[in-house]
């Protein structure tokens, strides 16, 4: 049996037993000339590997809870993938939320309304702000801050499927990984519900489309 045979068998066994199964570690153990073949076999296996059976303890130890948290906000909210994308872009740019808000307010010429801009940005990250209401100016400013295209931000903000029925449009479902989390605190808290004719410029930028 070749090294590749042994290593792919070991990889499969380790993966299926819930072990570490680090593909890079297995590649390092292979002869240089065998690595591409082993990589192809590992990839072929992973593309067919069955869904991992549910295991609550293993779930808690995995990387899944963080992703589930943002996905739940995305699925339940009105802001598409912004709840996962915006914090990720912020992290990549090594900016604190407060720094993004200050920069955004400055780019929108709304320095005096920084707090309100911050509340709206918080809603975008929390999934509570209907993305179709957010103007191109806001997305353009964020695109410049994060080094992304405005179009990519717009596309990411497209809501999941149909609008939520039976739920307030600005209520995000679960903002924590705990399924029993308090769902009573929509991310729209603190913002006025004034009719459109009473909106100021910042309201129009974030809600007027």
């Amino acid at each position, binding site marked *: 049996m070749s090294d590749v045979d042994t290593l792919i068998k070991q990889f*499969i066994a380790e993966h299926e037993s819930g072990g570490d199964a*680090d593909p890079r570690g297995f590649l390092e153990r292979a002869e240089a000339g065998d690595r591409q073949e082993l990589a192809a076999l*590992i990839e072929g*296996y992973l593309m*067919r590997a069955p869904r991992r059976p549910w295991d609550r303890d293993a779930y808690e130890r995995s990387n899944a809870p963080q992703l589930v948290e943002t996905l739940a906000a995305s699925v339940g909210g009105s802001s598409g993938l912004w709840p996962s994308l915006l914090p990720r872009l912020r992290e990549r740019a090594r900016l604190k939320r407060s720094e993004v808000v200050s920069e955004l307010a400055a780019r929108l010429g709304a320095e005096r309304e920084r707090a309100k801009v911050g509340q709206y940005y918080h809603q975008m990250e929390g999934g509570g702000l209907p993305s179709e209401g957010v103007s191109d100016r806001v997305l353009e400013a964020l695109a410049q801050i994060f080094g992304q295209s405005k179009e990519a931000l717009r596309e990411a903000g497209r809501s999941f499927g149909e609008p939520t029925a039976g739920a307030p449009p600005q209520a995000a479902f679960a903002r924590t990984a705990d*399924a029993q989390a308090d769902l009573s605190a929509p991310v729209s808290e603190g913002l006025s519900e004034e009719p459109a004719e009473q909106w100021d410029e910042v309201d129009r930028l974030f809600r007027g489309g």
Partner: protein
Amino acid sequence: MADGNFRELTELELAELSDEELIDYIRAARAAGRGDAVTLALRVLVFGYLEIIERRVALKVPPQDVSEVAAQAMESALKSAFDEESVGQFRSWLNTITSRRIADYHRDREDDPYLVQLPNEHEGDDEVWGEIAGREYEGVRLDAERAIQTAYGELKAEHQAIIDAYVFADRPAAEVAEELGTSEANVHQVASRFRKRLRELLDDGDTPG
């Protein structure tokens, strides 16, 4: 599952659902405004696949970026499923999206100075590595995936079944032979030819685009 008569399932019941049934359930829970049920079902689905995706991504992306690329793949696949785009089987779509996010990663970083030049036997030989020459992590070419898909795709359906069971599910040749109504020697021969073809494709780098 209509909005009005949504029935919440337990973790164990959710774990028994197929991918497509889970997605339907999440959609129904969302429509019924049941954020806790959405989160619980997302846990089962994300936990089931995130590690598999991470391991695929780890073959081709530097360790520090694996989580991000894997999360993007999961998010995109779920969003497509929700948008009712014609994604077919979720699993197959997830594979496709993962490949795309890996390709996006390398495309976006073509000029990224932080990507390390590979220490490998072909260093400096752009022809060997194709369009991402010298920019990919740890020597795993993006076309390793294409090679395995090509070698597999060239097989007759009954031979694919042998490869699935003997190579990718790592089951004993005798058991596979009995189940598929062939000889043990034939199982070995089919697997051997498959591996030989795979090596040819990897050596030549001539997998069809």
